[in-house]
């Protein structure tokens, strides 16, 4: 897996209602700010309102139809808003009512097998696409801030995983088995770099 690191150089703008980066270091309580909830990867909430005694009484509060391909992402929950994805799409919806707040849609080529979710940092969201681009969105309105190519979709690369924020950096990997694609000199060199353990690509980008 190729691994790219994006340095978050400039502090983002005011984020009174965005995600406080300090929340990423704590066990999730009343929020789910990363794909795994927290860095432990336990995917466990310490909230106690729902337990083995009352789980059977839960009922449907609302349903949201994406009219899209299979929904495979883990929603983030930050300040009462859910952020989740399908290939080509990101939604922000009200966790209480299920009403949509915004939708970002970017039809792309590449493998649409699944999309696992977004990462959030302050007032920004990070989203991997089926043509192996990484997109930065404004969490307030879903407007695109930047779009960079992480890998070449012509060699079968795509992004299905959720990015991870660590110490002010976005970490993203690609999926795609190159063995079924014709190998060019360029891709061979890239493989070699990975085998040597060298950082094949380090991109710095303004966030």
């Amino acid at each position, binding site marked *: 897996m190729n691994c790219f690191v994006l340095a978050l150089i400039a502090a983002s703008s005011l984020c009174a209602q965005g995600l406080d980066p300090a929340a990423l270091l704590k066990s999730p309580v009343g929020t789910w700010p990363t794909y795994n909830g927290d860095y432990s990867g336990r995917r466990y909430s310490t909230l106690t309102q729902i337990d083995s005694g009352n789980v059977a009484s839960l009922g449907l509060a609302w349903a949201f139809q994406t009219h899209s391909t299979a929904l495979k992402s883990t929603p983030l929950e930050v300040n009462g808003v859910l952020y989740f994805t399908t290939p080509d799409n990101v939604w922000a919806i009200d966790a209480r009512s299920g*009403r949509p*707040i915004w939708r970002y849609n970017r039809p792309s080529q590449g493998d649409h097998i699944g999309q696992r979710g977004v990462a959030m940092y302050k007032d920004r969201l990070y989203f991997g696409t089926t043509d192996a681009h990484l997109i930065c969105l404004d969490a307030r309105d879903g407007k695109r801030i930047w779009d960079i190519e992480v890998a070449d979709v012509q060699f079968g690369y795509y992004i299905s995983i959720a990015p991870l924020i660590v110490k002010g950096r976005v970490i993203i990997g690609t999926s795609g088995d190159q063995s079924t694609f014709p190998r060019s000199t360029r891709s061979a060199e890239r493989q070699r770099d990975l085998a040597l353990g060298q950082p094949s690509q380090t991109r710095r980008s303004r966030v």
Partner: protein
Amino acid sequence: MRACRPVTFFVALLIGIAVQACSGEELSEPAAATRGRTQFAQTCGFCHGPDANGGSEGPNLIRSAIVRHDRNGSLIAPVIRDGRPQKGMPSIPMSDSRIADVVAFLHWRLEESDLRSPANPREYDLKTLFTGNAAAGKVFFYGAGECGRCHSPSRDLAGIATKYAPTDLQARFLYPSDVPKTATVVTRSGAQFTGELFYHDRFNIAIKDSSGWYRSWPCAEVKFQIHDPLAAHLELLRKYTEADVHNLFAYLETFK
């Protein structure tokens, strides 16, 4: 609710046209309207004409603001019972059921008349728009219409008649729609939030605050006040007479 009325009207109009197109027949007159037609001809037609199009003494009721704004006799019935002495109309003694028939007849006449209006607004004859009196429109603008409370011909309305085509200009002052409502929400802890109203129903209220963030609350847990900058426009829809609309439009058309 009131804002939906024109939409409802046009949908009804389209359905009406579709029904006519499919069946190739005129819409059938409801029985109450048929009874009302006879009653109207006997007691009202002498002044208003047998089809309510206006007569020697009485005005055209198809274009009457009272008839247009009536809901199941809410406005028409009191006029029939009490008359309009200041305008020379006597009270007409009539039973409730006969009044209901007359009301049904007048609403039927509106429906019939509207169906004959041009289906395509582009085919609307502009000459029928330009029949107002600009001087009277100016009096309405600063007087009964209270337009001057928010608007000024030298500021926000300067050049508006050049900016918009006549039909667009009329649509915009009758049914403006591009100014969002705002809301101020006070939480139980006393925190206050103001912003553009994003959503509101009986259960939840949501705004976009001044920094662009979405915030929502259950209505039962907060106090809130919604401000609609267009409320005065909607209120005017209940007050306008046909002459007011044409005169005001004629005045706005002078803002070149």
